[in-house]
């Protein structure tokens, strides 16, 4: 799907919304509103680029760092903040971490805490699509840490031998918490693993939202046409620590962070929009102000909303 001016502007709105959300979510965590927040600042091109253009019936499964995907799929920041604050007026009803949230109407199937364990689940979603005789696609998000898990291997193998309609999308931010890729991943390349499953693989600049979008669209087209999975490796970087739960950064350097901040995905799209005349500085500012207002109101709402009553803890254990 090639992007029109309208698409580009909407894509910009989404990527900026994710950025402003992440900035505020991280800040509120540091202020003690909630704990153990896994920030996605710096990686916004991934959820924005992947999810733009997905049907509502296409499905996504995410990681602990995947709240940007929820936003890109249409979950409101109000719902997400209410979830972060663990209040009842959230799809989570305050009972579960937000990255576990499922909104089936938006194609959001949630995520898990065990790194990589979401991959077989996503494969199951693709299998169900096949059984239903539809051509919807599932996108499985995961990080570089997940590619050494048995779940990755078994999931990708199963999807490849059955040519399931799934896209395996790896956000390689080069660190699994404190362990650098070179120390955990034999061969040092994630995309190289595609060959061993007989599927195509692509490695792209994960901070170029248009490149992300176009690559994923090609993979989705393959999947819809019954040609099976693709493995996409997106090179990117998180600007914040693994999580706000007392994290100690040793392996990463200030220098490295500075280099990656220079590749900011939001600024890059902004520059392109200005250069191609799709936006003016004034319009950018207007969009930003609207987004900031949305985020601020979402936080206020979350702060003021009530917690769920105790008996809510007992609901939905079983159907």
């Amino acid at each position, binding site marked *: 799907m090639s992007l029109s001016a309208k698409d580009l502007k909407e894509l910009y709105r989404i990527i900026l919304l994710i950025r402003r959300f992440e900035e505020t979510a991280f800040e509120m965590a540091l202020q003690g509103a909630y704990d153990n927040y896994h920030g996605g600042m710096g990686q916004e091109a991934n959820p924005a680029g992947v999810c733009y253009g997905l049907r509502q019936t296409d499905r996504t499964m995410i990681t602990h760092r995947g709240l940007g995907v929820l936003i890109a799929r249409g979950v409101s920041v109000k719902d997400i903040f209410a979830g972060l604050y663990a209040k009842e007026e959230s799809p989570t009803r305050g009972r579960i971490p937000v990255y576990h949230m499922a909104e089936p109407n938006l194609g959001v199937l949630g995520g898990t805490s065990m790194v990589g364990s979401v991959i077989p689940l996503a494969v199951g979603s693709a299998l169900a699509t096949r059984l239903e005789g539809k051509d919807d696609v599932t996108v499985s998000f995961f990080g570089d840490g997940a590619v050494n898990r*048995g779940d990755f*291997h078994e999931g990708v193998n199963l999807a490849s*031998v059955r040519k399931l309609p799934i896209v395996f999308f790896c956000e390689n931010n080069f660190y699994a918490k404190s362990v650098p890729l070179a120390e955990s991943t034999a061969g040092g390349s994630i995309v190289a693993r595609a060959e061993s499953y007989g599927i195509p693989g692509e490695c792209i600049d994960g901070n170029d939202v248009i490149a992300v979008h176009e690559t994923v669209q090609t993979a989705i087209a393959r999947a819809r046409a019954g040609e099976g999975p693709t493995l996409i490796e997106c090179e990117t970087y998180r600007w914040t620590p693994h999580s706000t739960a007392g994290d100690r950064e040793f392996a990463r350097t200030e220098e490295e962070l500075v280099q990656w901040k220079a590749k900011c995905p939001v600024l890059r799209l902004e520059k392109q929009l200005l250069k191609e005349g799709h936006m003016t500085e004034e319009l950018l500012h207007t969009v930003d102000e609207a987004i900031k207002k949305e985020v601020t109101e979402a936080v206020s709402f979350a702060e003021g909303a009530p917690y769920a009553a105790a008996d809510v803890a007992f609901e939905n254990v079983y159907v």
Partner: protein
Amino acid sequence: MRLLRVSDERVAERARRGEVPGLLHLGVGEEAVAVGACAALRPEDKITSTHRAHGHFLAKGGSPKVLMAELYGKEAGCCRGKGGSMHLVDMNIGFLGANGVVGAGLPIAVGAALGARIKGEDWVVVCFFGDGANNEGAFHESLNLAAVWNLPVVFLCENNQYGISQSILSQQKVANVADRAVSYDLPSQIIDGNDVLAVFGTISKAIDAARQGKGPTLVECMTYRISGHYEGDSDAYRDLGEVAAWLQNDPIQRFQDFLLNQGVLLPEEVESLFRNVDTTVDEAVAFATGAPYPTPDKAEKHVYAPGKRGTS
């Protein structure tokens, strides 16, 4: 190889008579892999095995009597009757376990190689596994870990074309297990697993590389099991023509012909060798049938190791 063949055939026969209990996974047709590989090992090297372990056990130097007694469930067995066919262990010969769980031996082999490094020893570990195991998460995690830590382990895939009833191409998209090696940037080879000298040569090189600190190799040995998956398997999922074709490729017959052609072996020596093997297996069966069962109180022993730090 002849010993492995006759031993397993005799086990099958005895099982049909009701003398050998449990699930028995025989390796008839696959002897060259076990024998060729183990011939390349030093006594201090270790192996891990699978549910199809009898051949590996004997090839590594396990006693036929002690094997047979274990299969019969007798106390004189290598595991005092507690392990049985799929859980053979013999620490004296570096046989670190058959395994009832597909793929479970791979991480253990990686650990044994890690142990060599921690202890400053130079043993190498050969990890036997089947084609079915290569789709297990344990395969992936183990090869990655061994590669990234450069451990002295050789991953030997005994590709007998079937995971129980499912042929390999119904289980994975790539035709060979060796195709997985690219994921871990490991050297790999595919060889004729019914050519015992090819197995010996390839595994020797892989072992040398591991011992010299060059890390793991993935070797895929193409072979075929003439036996069913287990003794009693209807084997209905296989084409009789396919089985017949592989019978023509019998590893023992091939090596025998080779040795005769080379003049290394004379026809009468073959006879005599076969008789010796028969005798050995007869004696093993006699030993096993005559040996006592463990007494019931033994069931509660060895749940825990006594003491601390290797004390008895």
